[in-house]
């Protein structure tokens, strides 16, 4: 469990990135953090693995105040994948990159290799093992950075914008892998602007603006609250826009629909029997 209590943080003493953020994330949850650019989302998750330390307030990880834990200790519990993969990758082959973290955690070379192969497969990166991360495309590099952390299967996974540069197919693979880890008890936290990715995969959403948390609840409730959307620079997903527009024409259509199959069904019903 992660508890963040009234955390404040400023990088330069002038501009305040976090102005009193509080939240609690239980073991095994899937939580999305969304909101305006510069709202403090990345700053918030960097507090969870000790990369940043609160200037005011505290962070408690599994019952222990994080100030008593080193980054090395914290990152065994909380694995963080950075927004920009170039800040994370530094070795000359994908395989070395992935095995580096595993070996640091005490995996034997054989176990590390096995885990590496499995992770590459899960992320659609078969055949990339010997390639240099720096010769890969932006989207591929992003997936390698993800792989380095996913391979270690930390108790809590915190991913900063994992869907950037990913095509529809890759996004599905990523979602499947996160679901699988989650089913095996891992907590999954993502920072993302990808509304559809959140609706499809994350039951809880925390919305932020200007260094504060302005909404925390079920994804459906948070993302259908116009006031929250406005304050957090979010837009409703295309299917919700469609549902709202349909509702104006056909009052029986719920404005809250947000899944493809729901829209398909409701339109089929309206136009039912037509060929």
């Amino acid at each position, binding site marked *: 469990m992660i508890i963040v209590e009234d955390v404040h943080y400023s990088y330069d003493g002038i501009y305040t990135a976090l102005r009193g953020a509080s939240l609690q994330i239980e073991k095994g949850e899937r939580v999305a953090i969304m909101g305006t650019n510069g709202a403090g989302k990345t700053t918030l998750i960097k507090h969870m693995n000790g990369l940043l330390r609160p200037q005011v307030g505290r962070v408690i990880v599994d019952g222990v105040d994080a100030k008593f834990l080193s980054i090395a200790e914290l990152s065994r519990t909380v694995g963080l994948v950075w927004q920009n993969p170039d800040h994370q990758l530094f070795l000359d082959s994908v395989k070395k990159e992935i095995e580096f973290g595993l070996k640091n955690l005490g995996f034997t070379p054989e176990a590390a290799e096995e885990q590496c192969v499995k992770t590459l497969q899960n992320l659609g990166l078969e055949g990339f093992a010997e390639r240099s991360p720096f010769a890969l495309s932006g989207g591929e590099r992003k997936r390698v950075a993800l792989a380095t952390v996913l391979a270690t299967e930390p108790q809590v996974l915190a991913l900063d914008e994992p869907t950037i540069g990913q095509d529809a197919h890759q996004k599905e693979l990523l979602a499947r892998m996160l679901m699988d880890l989650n089913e095996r008890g891992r907590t999954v936290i993502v920072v993302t*602007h990808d509304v559809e990715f959140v609706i499809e995969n994350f039951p809880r959403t925390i919305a932020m603006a200007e260094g504060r948390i302005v909404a925390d609840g079920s994804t459906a409730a948070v993302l259908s609250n116009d006031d929250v959307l406005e304050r957090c620079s979010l837009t409703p997903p295309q299917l919700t826009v469609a549902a709202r527009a349909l509702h104006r024409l056909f009052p029986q259509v719920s404005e809250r629909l947000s899944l493809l199959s729901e829209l398909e069904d409701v339109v089929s019903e309206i136009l039912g029997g037509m060929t």
Partner: protein
Amino acid sequence: MALVEFADFSFKYLGADFLALRKVSASVNEGEYVVITGPSGCGKTTLCRAINGLVPHFHRGYIAGNVYVDGQNTREATVAQLASKVGLVFQNPANQLVTLNVEKEIAFGPENLGVEPQEVRKRVEDIIDLLNLEHLREKHPHEMSGGEQQRLAMAATLALKPKVLVADEPTSNLDPKSAELILGIIAELNKRNGMTVLLVEHRLDLVAKDASRVLLMDRGQIVADGPPRDILPMDISMEIGVGIPKATQVYRRLQAKGIELGRVPLTGEELAILVGEVHRL
């Protein structure tokens, strides 16, 4: 004459064992808005780099065929010459920010192209206003969030007043409202000023409605090329994993059930309008 023309162009990065682009032929006319899409690693970024000359002048490698920009062969032009026509917004904004504040960053490009100081100052103010950057004026680019950096990179590129804007996933780090703002400005510059746009994007929900044309790429080749309403409902778009607008996906699913909407919707509103029309019939 085409403004950007790829003639049987192939490219392989130095040390790579496969072609990033394979015999690509396509031409883009002045005033077009072309969305380039396709699976990650398919060559979209390489295509962008080939337009402003970073391929082959900065990223070296094997090259065959030619790319012409405004009639000039990019093999013979310098990156500096091409920069006066082509503005490239990189995929990773941090790779293109070079100065210590917003005003200097925006002024940097025009100054280097020899634009008069007074005109540079005007452009800086206009762009800060246009892209809503006032609150970032005093912030150091490397202390900005990913999204803020991306907006600044776009500002610095638009300040060049490029004939062709090439943007590689320019809104990937932006919150949805900021993405809408930036894409709205690009569409406006395309419509009103005739700026030619080539834009790489996975999330076609956001851009298909603005585009006159979609280039679908897969494994270094262009596999489909045409208006979005023709290309996006095609099976191939589904198969290679393009982020087809949800409204278009609903259209496809209904079609499979024998329900015809008549036209292809690209947005949620369009979908609702079409359903309303068909219902009234």
